[in-house]
């Protein structure tokens, strides 16, 4: 048996544009604003997420988020969700989820925030 060592340097490789795929889209269903997020909600994309959501929300009080297309989320992504929720609650509104991916559910469960966001087991959300 042998030991194997591999040294890789990304110093001169421009990977950022190819590894982060992130899209936010908004629509209105039955008078309710729905924002859909696809991609990775992490340190690199959180600012863009917040800017896009703020633009979409405008003066609305309520927002539904479809996070079924989120393939990865970390604590900064969770922090962004909390910011959005608190902003809406402060103006008498609410944030709710249309659907969440397993990646989102994992983080919400791990941090004990699932109930705060009305999440039930297996990615189901309160009506």
């Amino acid at each position, binding site marked *: *048996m042998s030991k194997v060592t591999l040294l890789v340097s*990304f*110093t001169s490789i421009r990977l*950022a544009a190819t590894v982060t795929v992130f899209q936010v889209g908004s629509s209105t269903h039955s008078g309710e604003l729905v924002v859909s997020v696809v991609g990775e909600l992490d*340190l690199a994309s959180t600012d863009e997420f917040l800017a896009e959501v703020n633009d979409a929300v405008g003066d609305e009080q309520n927002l539904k988020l479809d996070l079924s297309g989120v393939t990865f989320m970390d*604590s900064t992504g*969770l*922090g962004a969700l909390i910011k959005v929720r608190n902003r809406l609650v402060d103006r008498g509104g609410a944030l709710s989820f249309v659907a969440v991916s397993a990646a989102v559910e994992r983080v919400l469960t791990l941090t004990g925030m699932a109930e705060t966001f009305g999440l039930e087991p297996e990615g189901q959300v309160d009506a």
Partner: protein
Amino acid sequence: MNEGELVPGVGPLSDRREWDVATIKIEVPALPDFVAPLRSATRSASALADLAVDDIEELQIAVDEAATLLLPLVDPRGPRMLEARFQIGDGEVQISLAVYAVAGADVDRTGMAWIMLSALDPSVDVRSESDCVTIVITRVRSGRSQ
């Protein structure tokens, strides 16, 4: 398909590979955009160690959170690089993430990133040596004692 088989009939990776322990070192710019490649490398290293899917996904989050904790500590006068070292064994991966940090800098243990990291790896180790801060994460295949 038998336990440990990635491809039916091929057998577990641990029966086929020609090495006991492998080390991969990756160095990326200490910037948020380059945390994603570390997550990808984590997935690959974990698969080589035959970790379970849940282990792999949790380890990716742990590495991401460790990087999130280290990036604010980076000394702007230093090399501004984030080094990841993956030690891959059979059913076990140890990942060390390190940056050159400003003098006296320490990991923030009060925020959500630390809460998540320490929940994912209760034995996470933080080492501060001279101008370098290192976070060490270990994951053993589910069902195997550490």
